[in-house]
C-alpha cells in the first residue's frame, strides 16, 4: 500500500534518546490529528520499544536503533529495529511482569505496546537483533456522512 509520508531515524542506544524518539514520533503523528489519548498511547509504546533496545538489545554497549514511521491512510506504522542480542524466548518476554531487567524494570513493556496499539508484531533472532512493528489506527479524523 502506498505510504503518504514517512520518516527514518537512526539513534545511538543512549537512554536520553528515549525522549527524543517518542517526541519525534509524536510530532510526525500529529498530521493524523490524533486525540491526546491516542498520542499518549503512541508515545508510551515508542518509549517501551526504544527502552527495550537500550536495556536488553545492547546491555553493555551503545548500538544503533533504527526508527521508521509511515502513514498509510488513517494508520500510523512504526518500526523499531536493533542489531543487538535478540530475544531467546519471545513468549516469555511478552508475558506481563516477566523481566530480566531486575528491580528497575516492571516487565510490562510488551503488554503496554500490545494494549496501547492496534497491532504489534515482533521478530527476533538471538545474536542478530529484534524488529518491533506496531500500527495505530487514528479514528479522530474520520468524517461521518
Amino acid at each position, binding site marked *: 500500500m502506498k505510504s503518504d509520508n514517512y520518516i527514518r531515524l537512526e539513534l545511538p542506544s543512549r*537512554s*536520553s534518546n*528515549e*525522549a527524543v524518539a*517518542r517526541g519525534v514520533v509524536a510530532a510526525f503523528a500529529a498530521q493524523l490529528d490524533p486525540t*491526546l*489519548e491516542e498520542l*499518549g*498511547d503512541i*508515545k*508510551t509504546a515508542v*518509549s*517501551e520499544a526504544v*527502552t527495550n533496545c*537500550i*536495556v536488553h538489545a545492547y546491555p553493555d554497549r551503545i548500538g544503533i536503533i533504527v526508527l521508521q514511521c509511515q502513514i498509510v491512510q488513517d494508520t500510523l506504522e512504526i518500526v523499531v529495529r536493533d542489531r543487538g542480542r535478540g530475544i531467546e524466548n519471545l513468549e516469555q518476554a511478552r508475558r*506481563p511482569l516477566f523481566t530480566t531487567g531486575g*528491580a*528497575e*524494570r*516492571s*516487565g*510490562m*513493556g510488551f*503488554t*503496554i505496546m500490545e*494494549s*496501547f496499539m492496534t497491532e504489534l508484531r515482533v521478530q527476533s533472532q538471538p545474536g542478530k537483533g529484534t524488529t518491533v512493528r506496531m500500527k495505530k489506527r487514528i479514528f479522530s479524523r474520520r468524517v461521518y456522512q
Partner: protein
Amino acid sequence: MRYTSYVQDQHLTIALAGEIDHHAAREVMRAVADKIDAYLPSLCCLDFREVTFMDSSGIAVVLNAIRRMRELGGNLEIKNVPAQPMRVLKTAGIEKLMELGSEAK
C-alpha cells in the same frame, strides 16, 4: 524530572514533576527510597499532578515504593494522576494493590 517533598505528622508527600521514563527512573527511585528511609513515615504519598509522561519505568518506581513502605509497616498512596500515567498504571493492575487517585478537576 524534578521532585519536591514535605513531611507532616509522619506523612511524607513526594510531588514528582516531569517525565518518568527509563532514563529518569533510577534517579526517581533513589530519591523516593532515600526520602522514605530518612523519614520512616507511616504514610507515603506520591503526587503525580505534574507528571507529564510516564512509561512502564514508572510502574517499577511505584512497585518499589509499595514494597519499601510495606516493609516499614506503612502504606503508599498515589494521588492526582493525569490521564496518560493513569492508563499505564491501570494496564499494570496497580489499582488492585492500592487506591489510585485521579487528577483533581
